[in-house]
Structure formats: structure tokens, C-alpha cells
């Protein structure tokens, strides 16, 4: 028994020396963030096409797939004058409750247009429950540089042959 006592003390002493030589294994969190794997599933974002239109078509498949019932989608109709996404409809309201979300990534899998994507960012902390409901304005990424955001006006509606994204189709801002 006495031998074991000293073995234990020896083990912790080694740990002590290592911590002092190589530093601790933990991180001082807000200042130093732990490097995450590229496929880490963090907070979501809603992506855009390269011409600035939103990918989300308001189909609510993500909401249906979500096991935690964390997504709320309300669809609106696109018009040629006021166009948000290439299809008929767009997400007028898009909210995710990060307190419910379990970061499973099922929404990502369910989305037909790759609009909703989990990034490798850690969800922010907050002081109220409301602050954990992220809205479309917070989720939507900014348009690529030099490209107008949404809504846009369809320059020539006759050019549009399909209701999804077509390469080279340019709209103008309104």
C-alpha cells in the first residue's frame, strides 16, 4: 500500500513538471480558441449564389428534418420586381432557436439547394433566451463583393427558363 502511495505521488509530480514545462492542456477560452476540425458542426449560416440571390427557397424541408424542432420557416412569393431567390418562393422569416438545436446537421442534409450550412464557428453565449433565436438577417451571409444583395429586379424575365439558379443570369438591384 505504501508503494502505491509513492507511485501516485510520482505520477502527479510528473504531471506537475510537464504542466510547468509545456504549459497546461486547457485554453484561456475567450482569448485563445481551441482549433476546430474543418467539419466541426457549429452555428448555421444561410448561403447565397454568386450573383447575390439567396439559395433558400423557403421549402421548410430543413424544419421538417430537424429532430429538435429548432427551425421556423415562413415562405413568401418572389416576383420579378422583387426577387430574393431564383425560385417561386423565398424564406420571408427564417429563425433557428440555438437553445433547441443539437447541431446534428440534418437541416444541412435536407436542404435541396445547399442554403443552410453549419459553419465551424462556436455559437455565441447570451444573457436572455431571446438572444439565442437567430433570425434570417443574422444567418444570411453578405453577398460576394461587387454583387448586389437581395431583393433584386429580374432584368429580362424572358431569359429565365428554369426556376432554379442558372449560371450567367444577372439581375440588377432595386
Amino acid at each position, binding site marked *: 500500500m505504501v508503494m502505491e*502511495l509513492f507511485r*501516485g*505521488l510520482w*505520477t*502527479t*509530480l510528473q*504531471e*506537475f513538471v*510537464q*504542466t*510547468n514545462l509545456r504549459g*497546461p*492542456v*486547457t485554453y*484561456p477560452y475567450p482569448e485563445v480558441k481551441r482549433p476546430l476540425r474543418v467539419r466541426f458542426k457549429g452555428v448555421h449560416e444561410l448561403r447565397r449564389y454568386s450573383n447575390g440571390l439567396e439559395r433558400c427557397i423557403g421549402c421548410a424541408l430543413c424544419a421538417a428534418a430537424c429532430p429538435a424542432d429548432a427551425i421556423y420557416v415562413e415562405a413568401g412569393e418572389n416576383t420579378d420586381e422583387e426577387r430574393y431567390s431564383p425560385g417561386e418562393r423565398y424564406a420571408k422569416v427564417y429563425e433557428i432557436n440555438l437553445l433547441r438545436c443539437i447541431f446534428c446537421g440534418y437541416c444541412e442534409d435536407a436542404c435541396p439547394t445547399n442554403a443552410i450550412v453549419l459553419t465551424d464557428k462556436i455559437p455565441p453565449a447570451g444573457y436572455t433566451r431571446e438572444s439565442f433565436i437567430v433570425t434570417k438577417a443574422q444567418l444570411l451571409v453578405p453577398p460576394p463583393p461587387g454583387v448586389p444583395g437581395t431583393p433584386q429586379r429580374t432584368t429580362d424575365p424572358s431569359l429565365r427558363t428554369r426556376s432554379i439558379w442558372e449560371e450567367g443570369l444577372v439581375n440588377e438591384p432595386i
Partner: protein
Amino acid sequence: MVPFLVEAIIKSAILVLLLLTGFAYLTLAERKLVADFQARIGPNRAGPYGLLQPLADAVKLFFKEDFIPEYADRALFVLAPLITLIPAILIFAVIPFGPELTLFGYRTRLQLTDVNVGVLYIVAITSISVYGITLAGWASNNKYALLGGIRASAQMISYELAMGLAIVSVVLTTGTLQVSGIVEAQRNGWLLFLQPLAAIIFFITGLAEIKRAPFDLVEAEQELTAGYLTEYSSMKFALFFMAEYVKMIGFSALMTTFFLGGYLGPFVDHYPALGVVYFTLKVALLIFLMIWIRATLPRIRYDQLMALGWKVLLPLSLANVMGTAVVVALTA
């Protein structure tokens, strides 16, 4: 008479001040060291390297509600922390921190008072402390607190015997009850080497006496919530906490004085101030050892604690006293 009083007051003021800062920074040191043992960072938010953490803790404790349970015995409940803390501080009155030296043309000993039965005084005072803990457990009117208090008294009784006998071997070897005499008797070699068994027994029983891991059954969080501390909050809790750490320093100081040659060390006779440095270093080393043990060993079971005290340590210390007595009688 008057110079003596002034000297005593100045010395005790310095001593209490030192102890209070020592206590505050010992809490930080313990947390930092345990963090090192566990490969963590430890407290680092309050000030550079967390150096202001003790201040932050103190402010926090001041502003906590000072709660007394409705069915508690109010008088005893308030008295208990004091009964625990005061003896812990009183011990330092007889501990020599350094040899005699001249300060501003005034020759003085770095010791509050050199009672000629200092060892007896120490043994007497240390036993008072446990009353505070038992009373705290009783006065709280809480079953966890009461269990903690009962454990404390049982633990103290079984360990004080062996500890007392270890001290008896020290007294037998040095032939004096005066604390400074014990230190001076170690000029030719520390008692640690003359009385290794007594030193080990003293250290183990000391750990049990001040309720450090692995003998912290009195407040065993997993079994007793916080033991006798359960109902205490705010400054009363702080007093218990202070008592605990002051006892830790006090025990290290005793161990240093009895077995590690106190303030003695190379060149102490030429530069008496070095004695304080040696003393502090030895105390710090012992405190590190205690923290190291806390970071390593799991708490032992209650029956194991009792068995260790009564069946191992007590017979060993008795045998040690007998052996010492025989050797001293033969060589005298």
C-alpha cells in the same frame, strides 16, 4: 514592563498581518498548484496571473448574505468559527521564526514569547480548535453538519494521541519543553534524521489534525455536502476557511520547528536574518508537500481512518517513545 508590552504588541500585529496575507495567498497558491498538478491553467482572471483573486474572493464573501438557520443555536453558531480560528492563530505565539537579532539597535528574538513549556502550550492549544468544529456541527441543527462535527471529534481524538506521543519523543530526545530549545538542540542534525519514525507519524497525524486530504472526512463533499460548514455563509464561512489555512501554515511551522531544524541553516550565525528565509522556505516546502498530497491521494474511508489511527500509528508511536526513552536513559 512597558517596553516588553510595546514589543509584544508590535510583534503580534506583524504576525497577524503576515498570517492574514499568508492565508489569502495560500488559497491562491493552492488553487494554482492543484491546477498545475491537473494540467489546467487555474485562476487567471483577477489581475495579472490571478494575483488579485484573494481580494476578489474576500469582496465576494463580504457581500454574501450572512445567514443563520432558523433552528440553529444562535450563540454557539456565531461562536464556533471564532473558537476554531483563534487557537489556530495562537499557536504562532511560541514559534521562533528566526534567531535573536538586532533590529534598529534593539536586540530581539523573532518569536512572540519564549514560554519555557512551549510544547505543552502547543499541544493544549491545538486541541481547542476541534471544539469549534464540533460545536459548529451541533449548533447548525443540520444532520450533515452534525455528522461532520462528530467525525471531527472522533478523528481528533484518535490522531491527537499518536501526535502527542510523537512530540513526546521529540521532547525526550532534546530534553526540553522550550520551543527555541528544541530548535537549538538541532544544531548538530535535524530531528528528522534522529527521529524519522516520529517525523512521519507527526506528519500523518498532522494532516489528519488539520483535516487535509486524504483525511478530509470532516467535510467530505460527496458524503456530507460540506460537513460542519454546510450552514455557514459569508464571513463566518470565511473564518472557518481562514482557520483551515492558518492551521496549514501553523502545522508546517511546527513540523519545521520540531523536525526540520526550524530557522537553522548554513551561515545563520553570521547573518541572523537568513534564519527567516530558511524558516519560510521549509514551511513553503511542507505546504507544497501537503498540496501535492491533496492533488494525488483519494480520501480514505472512515473505518480505514480509525484503523490507521488506533491500530497502526498509536502502537508505532508508543514503541518509538519506548525506544527513545531507553536510548536516552542509556546514553545519559
